[in-house]
């Protein structure tokens, strides 16, 4: 019996030692992995938001986001002094008033707000993947990037070589083929853009009883979320976009970029359809509509009140009997709606 207990004790000791060795071995292995690769980052998503669209090909890492943020704000990518932030000012919710394309058309620059939750990008949804969204930006219309100059500037820069190494394991940017290098740059920038989450507006604070809305804002909220304004179908909470394509009646004849989604699909049912923009931070992102035709929120509300143009693709939601040409709100109701839209501003998003 004594001998049996002794053996059991020995067994326990050996088992314990074995477990300790295994734990230490595993810890060592983890440490090695951490040292050799970028550190995975978990996106901090508000509990009332949907899951973000993440790419298995471009997992979010602290090092990738750091590199992306630096590149986003740096003119090193261009030959003309432009950076991403030239057209996406932080204080304008990462937007600017207007951009003129090569066809001479004015485009309202989409803000970089909650892009992690978008299934596609640009007004007509021409880009389905955030990770490669900026690949075209190296062309003449934006950065007009000079290939050799880009290699030279990145490889001789004081910090970029180390940042690329940490984010993607690239020891020498000169050894990376040009298309792949641009892809890695876009991967880093898209990782950073995914972190631009806005969910702490005055309205959000009202919902959790941290702040109050005034009477006019409350009136505007009830118009927004009811049949009176019927804004919620395309701009419902919490994202304030349904991320779908609609013809909201700004045009009845569709030429050039006013053709909207049709330019991507070639389907005549898509003439004049555009992706619903988020209304979060809308007060910072004037002018409005895809071509920036409305300078103020007051003009936008006036359009929905009386200026809707009918066409065969006008969204069914906007053809309600009695409201064919608009909402017919009173002046007070229109002002209230504008007041509510301004509660969607997240001042911390543009300052922190």
């Amino acid at each position: 019996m004594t001998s049996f207990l002794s053996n059991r004790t020995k067994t326990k000791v050996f088992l314990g030692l074995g477990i300790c060795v295994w734990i230490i071995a595993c810890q060592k292995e983890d440490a090695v992995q951490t040292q050799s690769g970028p550190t995975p980052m978990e996106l901090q998503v508000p509990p009332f938001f949907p899951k973000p669209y993440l790419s298995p090909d471009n997992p979010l890492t602290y090092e990738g986001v750091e590199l992306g943020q630096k590149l986003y704000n740096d003119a090193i990518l261009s030959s003309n002094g432009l950076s991403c932030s030239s057209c996406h000012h932080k204080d304008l919710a990462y937007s600017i008033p207007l951009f003129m394309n090569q066809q001479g058309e004015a485009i309202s620059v989409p803000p970089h707000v909650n892009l992690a939750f978008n299934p596609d990008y640009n007004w007509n949804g021409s880009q389905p993947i955030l990770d490669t969204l900026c690949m075209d930006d190296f062309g003449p219309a934006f950065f007009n990037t000079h290939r050799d100059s880009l290699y030279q500037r990145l490889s001789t820069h004081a910090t970029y070589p180390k940042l690329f190494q940490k984010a993607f394991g690239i020891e020498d940017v000169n050894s990376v083929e040009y298309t792949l290098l641009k892809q890695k740059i876009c991967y880093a920038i898209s990782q950073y853009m995914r972190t631009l989450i806005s969910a702490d507006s005055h309205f959000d604070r009202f919902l959790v009883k941290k702040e109050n809305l005034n009477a006019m804002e409350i009136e505007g909220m009830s118009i927004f979320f009811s049949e009176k304004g019927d804004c919620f179908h395309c701009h419902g909470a919490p994202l304030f976009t349904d991320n779908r394509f609609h013809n909201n009646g700004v045009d009845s004849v569709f030429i050039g970029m006013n053709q909207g989604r049709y330019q991507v699909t070639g389907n005549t049912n898509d003439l004049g359809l555009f992706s619903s923009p988020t209304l979060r931070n809308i007060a910072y992102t004037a002018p409005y509509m895809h071509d920036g035709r409305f300078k103020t929120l007051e003009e936008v509300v006036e359009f929905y009140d009386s200026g809707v143009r009918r066409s065969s693709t006008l969204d069914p939601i906007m053809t309600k009997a009695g409201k064919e040409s608009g909402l017919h709100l009173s002046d007070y109701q229109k002002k209230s709606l504008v007041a509510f839209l301004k509660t969607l501003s997240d001042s911390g998003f543009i300052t922190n």
Partner: protein
Amino acid sequence: MRVVIQLTGIVLLGIWSGCQKEDTQLIPPVEQEMLVRVSYDVDGDSLVASDIRYTNAAGNPFSVNRLNYYFSHIAVQNLDGAWTTLEDIVYLDAFDADKNTFLLKGLAAGNYKAFRVVIGLEPDQNSSNSLPPTVDNINMIWPEPMGGGYHFVKLEGYFLDGTNSNQGYAMHIGKNTFHSPAIISQSFEINAGKDTLDLKMNIASWFEGPNQYDLNIQGNYSMGKDSSMRKLSENGYDVFSFK
């Protein structure tokens, strides 16, 4: 000694009978996963998006541009008449192939008399933010000022009105009590060799039986109009059949 033998016998008998009982209780019914596939037509005409090619019972030429809805309280009727109800809530989109199939788990293999679903949500499930905030669910939210909860059905498209003009229509159903119990009283079997159930929605049925719904008369917009939503929800009971 005799007493010992007797006692041992009683104990063994007890153990044996206990084991017997336990065995009976532990034998679970054979569970079979069932794949449900939903397809769509309009009175036998295949579903084509955004084309005014169909005519409803009231004579309105119409198209279908969007159809989103929920299934809940999915149930099968056993041969003895009892219903087995599952807790799944499923979001469906007629124009998204990925959102027209779903897997049901926990059903026993065997024969069944009928299949039943609720189109929409019953009041105990239909409150604001009661569903996880998926992209699909947040786009189905029924705003709080209008009663809260979720849209049960969004059926949208265009139709030609009395003057042959192109008009939009938006048949939205929501709000408690306007869910539609839909029953297919037809026997079916679930087993390893027959693990798929094919349902078909006849979209035209939303506009007829028991209530003929004329878009020119009842209106092209149902949200906020209880009388319209009631008519539509009552029409939902027979929109599905087995394919």
